[in-house]
Structures are given as C-alpha cells and as structure tokens.
C-alpha cells in the first residue's frame, strides 16, 4: 500500500456507466487525453452476459451478481431528520450498479425523452394553476434548459443506443401512431418498434377502448440488427426475458459496453482503469479549482491522478456523496432550505395492478424484453388538468413485460397464502395467465427529503456512508390514488377474472425491502441560480468551474418516465458546451 502520483491527464472521469462512457467518447473526440476510473471490476458481454451462465436467476437476481456489493459500501436511510438512520443492508428496493458499464450493463432499456413541460415544471404549474397551487413542502424547480436545446442530443443518444420506437411527430408532421403527447422530433427513431407481447396488446386494446392513447414504449432493445454512429453493432433482441438485472447475451440491449466501449478501445489517448475507487476530488488552496482526484486501487494504494478537467458520473446520489466527501459546495440544510448539495433527492412513485386470466388465456409473462411494451401518457406530466386535483406530477401507465422468472414469480391474487398448498396452487394457476401493469409515477422533490453524510456508519475504506432522509409525502399519496384509479379503467376493460391493486396508502412508509425502481435523482441539481442549484445549465459546478457533474443527480425533481434517455441527452448537451465553449476558454460558462 503506497502513495502514488500518476502522470497528468487532460480529463479524468469518475465512474464508467452511461454518463462516464458518453463523456469519454466526447472528450476523446475533442482530442483530450482521458482517464476513466471505475470502482468496480471490468465487465463485458463476455463473460458476464455469456449464454447460458447468464440465464441464471439465482445468481443474478437473488444473489446480485452484477449489482453494487453492499458489503463494501452502502447508504443509510431514515424517514425524517429526527430519526436515526440504519444502513441499507440487503439489496431490494433499488439495485445500483458497479463495474465497467455501471447500471447501464444491466438496465432494462425503456428509453424516453423528458416532456418539455417537466423541464420548466414550477413555471408551468404557476402559469397554469396559479402561484399558490404548488404545495408548500414541494421544492420543485425549473431545469434551466429547454426541450428545443436538448432535442439534437435526444436524437443523437437514440442513434447511439439503437432505440426502437414509433415517432408521432417529426418536424411538425404527424408520421405515425406514436405517442400523441410527444413533443416534436427532428428524426424518426433509428429502428422500427419491436414486436409486442400478448400482454402489451391486451393492455393497448383496452386502453384505446376507454379513450386513452396507447403507443409502443421506445426501447433500447434492438428490433433489428443495427450499427450505431460509433460503428458499434447490435443484434436483434430475442425477448429472452433475462433483461433487467442481466447483461444481454445477444448484443441487443444498449449498454456502454456494447454501444460505446468498442469504439473507445480504438482510441490511444483513452485509458480505462477498473477497480479504482475515487475517494475525493482534490482542489487547490482556493477550493475553486479541481486539481485531480484521489483514489484507492485494487492493491490498496492511494493514487493521485492530476487532471485539468474532472467529470463526476458516479450515478444519481453518489454524485452528491462525492461532493460532500470532497467538501465542494454548500451542503443542504433542511431546517433553513439553504445550501444545495444533497437537496431535492427524488425517486419514483410506482404503483401497480395485476390482472388474472383463465387457464385458456396464455399471456406467457416469461417472454419479454426490458424496454418493451405499450404505454399511455394521458396522465403523465401535465397532460391533464391538475387544477381540481391538488397534486403535482403524474404517471405514464404501461405493460412493460420484461420477463417474469420462476423465483421472483408473478403476482398472485389477493388472499393467496404465502406458503403451503394454497400458495403452490395459486402459483401454478396464475404463472402463465397474468398481466401486470404499472403507473410509473413521479416523485416530487420535498423539503424533507435530502442527502447528507451519516455520523455513525462507515464503509470498507472508513468513509462515512451517505445518508438518505426519505419518505413518501401527501403529494405522493394523492398522485398514486388518482393515477391508479385511472389505470384501473384499463384493467377493468381487459375483463380479467380477478385483479390485484397495489397502491401507496396515506401514511404508508417507504419500504426498503421491496423493489421500487433504481430511478433516483437530485442531490446536485441544475438550475440558473447558485443559491438554489449546485450546477449550472451545462452541469458545470457553480463552485469549481473545471468540474462537471453528470447524471440524474441534476434532475430538480423526479420524472414519470425512466431517467436514462434524459440523462444521456443532458450528458451530450454538457459535452457540447465543454467542447465548443469551455475548452477554448476554461472558466465558468454562466456567470453566477
């Protein structure tokens, strides 16, 4: 165990998931010498995704083969600032990634563009519903960037990911039966939509019957063979059903490993170092300039990597964690609402309905792909009148049949025992005859939900754990009840023999023991004012101008959709600002 100082590099990237890989490609294209540091091991389609060993639910899902190893590091959680936190000891509610590719190696592939209204959420609500509409505890903000500004980057990200989908409107013209609520696009999707499962078609048909507007979920699972702008190749998805939580055996699911890394490997001025856990962003004596990073390598050496430019892309809340550890920016104080690092943590408010069919109707839920399905957007974003409803946000509804496996099992009708003959009979009767649908709701940032450092618990390097203070609040319960009620109309129109509705009830606490989603955001939010945001509209730190913080950490509040399409577009947007403006004249891109 030694102290080592590496040779200077132009840019160092912390974390090699989607954001790190995109930045590595962009910055090396700009001619910079780039070193990427990833805390987890090297990973790729082979061996992690190799068939048949990757088709193993026990190893991958139950034993978390690809997910972050909590034994080394985790976060602690409590419901309110008055509670003592306890660690998230066993993976369940969310499944953060580690290793080359990050969660991008084992995500699902629902690939969305945030709606234009959500990018200016506070202004939109105030304009439409009045200044007093937004509940007082809801700390939502505008993002400081518009859909029009991001559009080219959404388009390019879809090309890189090889996204399958049906456009609705391209350059102002209606081109097909896509999502009628979609904003204008500059191009169609690079690949046509995937085939749909029976479950998804049943849902779509019923949704149309009740007057909603079903469309195919844009999916980063390839509907056909494809070569992306980087020359990386994908094969057609086989609906294998081992998608979410698994590395794709088939080069069909977009990942940093399949869609970017093969191109980066050809670049001599790029270096990727796995098993390098960054412990601190180093700054000079003014605290205003980053000088590089300090990391611990696999042998336990403490290594300094000097760099001119630092990119932080360690996933959602981890970005706030690194800034808190590095003492960059002012930590958020929930009692005054001041400070920004750790502010506006937001999650996803997911609720669901399962519909059960007779023994002649085979829905075969084991057939599926992570990003595949049919959705309706009628109750997402601000696509409906919130005026009389008294809550902020909404939910897209969908059947996104990603592949049910035997251990995880499908939903079972209400009243089914947890074990014994009755349980077994119910599993046997329902496993291939069920359709599950989700209301994938927003979680609005709340004054009481935030991130800071835990005073008690430490990780394997002796670092204090990140502490999450989080619970559901009034707005969440109201949004859940309303959207599930609207989704129930679809479920009823499907004429199932039974239905099971799972919706958060007022007062129900956040449950760490059940999977919700791994869509967390906030903590290092973007905006137009350093008093209320941690990074500017280009994701540049207000405090340290040669530091850019990329990822869903920048989201001022949660979205209805899954985050990665927006994360990727924002990363390209930030990269463009670095390439075209920052590098010519390093310094703040926006004056505080």
């Amino acid at each position, binding site marked *: 165990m030694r102290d080592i100082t590496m040779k200077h590099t132009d840019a160092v990237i912390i974390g090699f998931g989607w954001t790190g890989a995109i930045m590595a490609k962009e910055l090396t294209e700009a001619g910079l010498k780039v070193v990427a540091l990833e805390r987890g091991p090297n990973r790729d389609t082979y061996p992690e995704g190799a068939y048949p060993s990757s088709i193993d639910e026990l190893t991958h899902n139950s034993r978390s083969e690809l997910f972050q190893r*909590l034994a080394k590091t*985790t976060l602690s959680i409590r419901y309110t600032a008055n509670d003592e936190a306890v660690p998230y000891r066993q993976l369940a509610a969310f499944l953060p990634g580690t290793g080359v590719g990050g969660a991008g190696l084992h995500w699902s592939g629902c690939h969305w563009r945030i709606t234009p209204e959500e990018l200016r959420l506070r202004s939109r609500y105030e304009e439409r519903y009045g200044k007093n509409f937004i509940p007082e505890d809801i700390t939502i903000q505008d993002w400081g960037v518009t859909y029009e500004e991001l559009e080219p980057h959404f388009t390019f990200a879809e090309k890189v990911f090889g996204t399958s989908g049906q456009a609705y409107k391209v350059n102002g013209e209606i081109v097909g039966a896509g999502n009628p609520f979609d904003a204008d696009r500059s191009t169609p999707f690079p690949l046509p939509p995937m085939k749909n499962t029976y479950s998804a078609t049943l849902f779509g048909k019923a949704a149309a019957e009740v007057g909603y507007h079903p469309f195919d979920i844009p999916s980063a699972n390839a509907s056909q063979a494809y070569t992306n702008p980087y020359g990386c190749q994908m094969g*057609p998805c086989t609906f294998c059903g081992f998608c979410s939580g698994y590395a794709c055996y088939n080069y069909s699911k977009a990942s940093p490993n399949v869609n970017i890394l093969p191109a980066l490997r050809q670049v001599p001025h790029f270096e990727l170092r796995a098993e390098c856990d960054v412990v601190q962003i180093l700054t000079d004596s003014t605290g205003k300039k980053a000088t590089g990073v300090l990391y611990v390598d696999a042998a336990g050496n403490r290594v300094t990597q000097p760099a001119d430019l630092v990119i932080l892309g360690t996933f959602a809340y981890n970005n706030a964690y690194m800034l808190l550890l590095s003492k960059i920016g002012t930590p958020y104080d929930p009692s005054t609402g001041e400070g920004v690092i750790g502010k506006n943590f937001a999650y996803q408010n997911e609720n669901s309905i399962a519909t059960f069919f007779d023994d002649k109707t085979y829905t*075969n839920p084991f057939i599926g792909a992570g990003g595949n399905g049919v959705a309706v957007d009628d109750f997402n974003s601000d696509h409906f009148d919130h005026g009389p409803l008294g809550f902020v946000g909404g939910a897209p509804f969908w059947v996104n049949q990603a592949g049910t496996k035997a251990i995880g099992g499908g939903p079972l009708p209400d009243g089914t025992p947890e074990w014994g003959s009755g349980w077994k009979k119910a599993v*046997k009767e329902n496993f291939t005859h069920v359709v599950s649908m989700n209301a994938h709701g927003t979680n609005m940032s709340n004054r009481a939900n935030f991130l800071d450092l835990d005073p008690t618990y430490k990780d394997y390097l002796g670092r204090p754990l990140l502490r999450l203070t989080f619970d559901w609040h009034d707005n969440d319960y109201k949004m859940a009840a309303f959207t599930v009620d609207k989704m129930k109309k679809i479920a009823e129109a499907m004429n199932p023999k039974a239905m099971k509705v799972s919706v958060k009830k007022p007062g129900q606490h956040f449950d760490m023991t059940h999977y919700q989603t791994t869509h967390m955001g906030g903590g290092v939010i973007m905006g137009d004012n350093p008093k209320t945001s941690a990074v500017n509209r280009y994701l540049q730190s207000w405090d340290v101008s040669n530091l850019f913080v990329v990822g869903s950490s920048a989201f001022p509040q949660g979205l209805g959709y899954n985050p990665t399409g927006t994360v990727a577009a924002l990363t390209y947007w930030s990269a463009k600002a670095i390439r075209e403006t920052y590098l010519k004249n390093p310094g703040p891109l926006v004056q505080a």
Partner: protein
Amino acid sequence: MPISPPGSSRRAFLLKTVAMIPAMTLAGTALAGLAQAADGGPSGYAPSFFTADEFAFVTAFVDRLIPADEEGPGAVELDVPNFIDLQMNTTYGHGGLWYMHPPFRQAPATFGNQLGLPPREIYRQGIAAAETAIQAKYGKRFTDMTAGERDTVITAMQKKALAMAPVPASMLFGQFLTNTKEGYFSDPIHGGNRGMAAWKMIGYPGARADFTDWVDRYGAKYPFGPVSITDLGA
C-alpha cells in the same frame, strides 16, 4: 395437462417415516437422506453445514412450506434442503453480500434485516431457539410433529406468535421461505429443483431464453418444456 410429480413416492415414504420413527432415532438421521435412499437415487445427501439434527428440522420445515400434493412436487423431493445447505457455504451464506457493520439498531420491518447475523447464523441460532421455544410451547420436537402440527407452528412463527431470541420467529420464517422458494425454482445447477419439476409444474421454460418466434403467437400455450444450464453443457 396433469403432471404427476416425480418422486411423490419418496415423499410418501418420508412422511410415513416421520410418523413411524421415534424421535430418538430420527435425531441422528437426515430425513432427506432417508427419502433419497427410498427413491433408489444417490445415497443420502450429507449436509456440509447443517448438523443432522438441524437438517432434519430444515427438512421438516420446508416440507410444509411447499408440500407435495396433487398440484405438484414438494420442496423435499426437489432437494430444497440440500440446496439450502449448499447455499450456506457461499458468500451469501456467510453474509458476504450484506452490509454487516455495527451498530445494529432496531428498526421497523420496512428497513430490512438489521439483526447483523448472516444466513448461516440465522439458521444455526434460529433453529436452536425455535427448538427450545417449540418444546416449551407445544411440549414436542418439531420433527416429531404431524404435518398439521407443523403448520400450526409455522403459522405462529409467521405471525410473530412464538417468542424466540436472538433470532425472532418471523425472521427465521422469512429466511426459510426465501431460500425454499429459491431452491424450488432456481436452475438445478444450484442443487434444488430436481429434474426441473417445479418449472414443469408452472410452465416455465427455464434457460431457453429465445422467444423470437413466440412473442407474437398471442394467447397460445408455449409448447416446449424447460431446459437447464446443465442441459446446455455449461
């Protein structure tokens, strides 16, 4: 399509065995070992982690969580006890997947297991505590009980109505339930789900993982039986 569960005769023998053999004899004998010998299969599985007494407890417990019946095979005949024993020697069994640093504070169930014991110790200390608590409350050993009596005990544990320390009854129950379902439904490469019988029962195709031709055959039953990783030569 009715499926006759493989090994149902083994299970019938096992239950008779439980009923016939006095506790003293049973204490030194693994139930699954008896069951397998009766089937003419490989001679008794020798547990590598559990003691013979513990293994008998495990067997008697999982036999009720997933009993053999007219619907399909039970956990015992699909080697679930063996699966659980094998899991105890993995990183998981040793608690190596979990964050295990103190302090271990009490927290509501929504915060997960905060006790600080790895699965091995949940079983080791839990079974010992359960034996004591069951003896005290019911005046009998668990392995001497009829199926109905064992169901009563398991229900009490599930409902936190059996006082036990340091492992609470509901935690031992939860650990059993999770691992039993895993052993029943995981790929046979892990030692349970013998003959993929659980997959056959529910119509799950296992490691086939290619449905290009089936995704749009709407409403039809998937016609092929399961394959396992072992079948595929991995």
